[in-house]
């Protein structure tokens, strides 16, 4: 199909191909694969990252140094290199069937991405913890809490609010970085498009489909993130306005502390 404007410019874009592949099972399956790996890796990364953050600000030199070294390595090398090293490289070095059979592509992808993400989350966690007024820790200590208790009950809950925007950012970055998983043979969204494009030579059309799905996910996720920020801003006078809250306001549901109304 050549668009009418080819009088002036030769534009060749086959919308039919886009429609064909938009909901094609191959694409949707790859999309699901991308989501699975991103979500699992993110959850793992956040949990591990917060642990590393607490270790980093600890007065215990072993904990603090270990955490520092971890962040240094996992933040300091590209994730594709980490994938190649710890999937192929590790399997080359450890020549045991038990290991090789169980260290599957999928598991390696989730674990390596989680480890990578934890390094970034450690820094975000550290920033969050530092953002909490030091008086909070003093007050907690004066009530007889240990460092760890104070962290768990007082500091971290307050730190989380500050951590939400950068964490959301990290998830979006992680989601897109999964496109390098082709290096270890995983077909995720970008590469499903690539494989099909290699067969029908409709490059732009196929990649448009992939781009569409990435944008869909990021959009839905951003709406969710905004809501999450709202919830954590409970009790504040100026609650952030989100798409969802604006929609419910129009429909008539009233909420306290909402703008001018």
């Amino acid at each position, binding site marked *: 199909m050549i668009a009418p404007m080819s009088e002036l410019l030769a534009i060749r874009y086959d919308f039919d191909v886009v429609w064909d592949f938009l909901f094609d099972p191959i694409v949707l399956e790859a999309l699901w694969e991308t989501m699975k790996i991103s979500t699992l890796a993110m959850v793992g990364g956040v949990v591990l990252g917060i642990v590393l953050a607490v270790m980093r600000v600890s007065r215990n030199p072993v904990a603090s140094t270990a955490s520092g070294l971890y962040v240094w390595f996992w933040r300091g090398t590209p994730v594709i290199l980490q994938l190649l090293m710890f*999937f*192929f490289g590790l*399997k*080359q070095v450890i020549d045991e*069937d038990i290991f*090789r*059979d169980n260290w*599957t*592509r999928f598991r390696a992808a989730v674990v390596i991405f989680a480890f990578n993400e934890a390094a970034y989350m450690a820094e975000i966690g550290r920033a969050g913890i530092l953002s909490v007024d030091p008086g909070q820790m003093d007050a907690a200590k004066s009530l007889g809490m240990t460092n760890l208790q104070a962290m768990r009950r007082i500091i971290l809950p307050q730190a989380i609010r500050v951590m939400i925007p950068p964490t959301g950012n990290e998830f979006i970055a992680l989601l897109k970085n999964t496109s390098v998983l*082709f*290096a*270890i*043979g995983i*077909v995720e969204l970008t*590469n499903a498009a*690539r*494989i099909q*494009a*290699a*067969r*029908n*030579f409709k*490059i732009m059309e196929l990649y448009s489909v992939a781009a569409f799905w990435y944008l869909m996910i990021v959009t839905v996720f951003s709406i969710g993130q905004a809501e999450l920020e709202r919830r954590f801003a409970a009790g504040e006078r100026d609650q952030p306005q989100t798409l969802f809250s604006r929609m419910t306001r129009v429909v008539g549901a009233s909420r306290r502390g909402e703008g001018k109304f």
Partner: protein
Amino acid sequence: MPRLFRTFLTLCLVALAAALVFAACGDDDDDNGGNGGGGDIDISGVPELDDGVLNVGSDIAYAPFEFYEEGTTTPDGLDIDLAEAIAVALDVDIEFQNTGFDGIIPALEVDDFDVLISAMTITDERSEVIDFVPYITVGTGIVVPTGNPDGIAGLDDLCGKTVAVQVGTIQFDMLEAQNDSCDDDVNIVVFDTNPLAVEDLRTGGSDANFSDYPVAAEDAAISGGDLEVVDTQIAPEPYGLGVRKTSTELNAVLDEALQAIIDDGTYQQILDDWDLPDIALN
């Protein structure tokens, strides 16, 4: 000293900008002189050869057809030697551009280079987009771990197995087609280069690797005893030099040059040198 620091910063930025400009001017791979030889073929009507250079695209990671000599950026291989012989017959220089296999036809279409030689099988789908000059006939081979633990003898035995292939190859298409006659589907694992696919086989992530027979044999030979090739060539088909559909003059002179090197024995000599005498075009 803020002012000193600012001057230093400015100099750094200027240096960076200069470096980027020069990097952009940089050129790709090799430049092999086409001296002596040929000159009998009239290339005056070929626009692509006006500058006296044959620009060739290739996925230079497919030994023994095209690969980089160890530790260098010099392309070598059967395809490379044939391309260089053709350039000599045409009395032009030659330059190679390394391009990922699945993007090589699109790259040809947007004039990144003028001809592709990349162990590419001539297929109907590809022929709809570009034109081919056939030059050798090659089949597909299967690489397995030494000892062939799964007893793979042919395409049918790949059902239910995990097979590593490169994206955009006919091997990928062959495996998908095979699934129609399989009870247990082939688990196709795709990589962007064949060496990575072989790596997956070597580290136990796949049961077999499916690629062109000479490549399969080569991978087995250099694996240090880890891999072996199954001794059957599957479905031999002609390979082609690819040109754009609009490059009709280039197509014609390449055909002439190929015929010239077949006639004077250079062609067979190259095939013999690479230990592949039987893949001559029939």
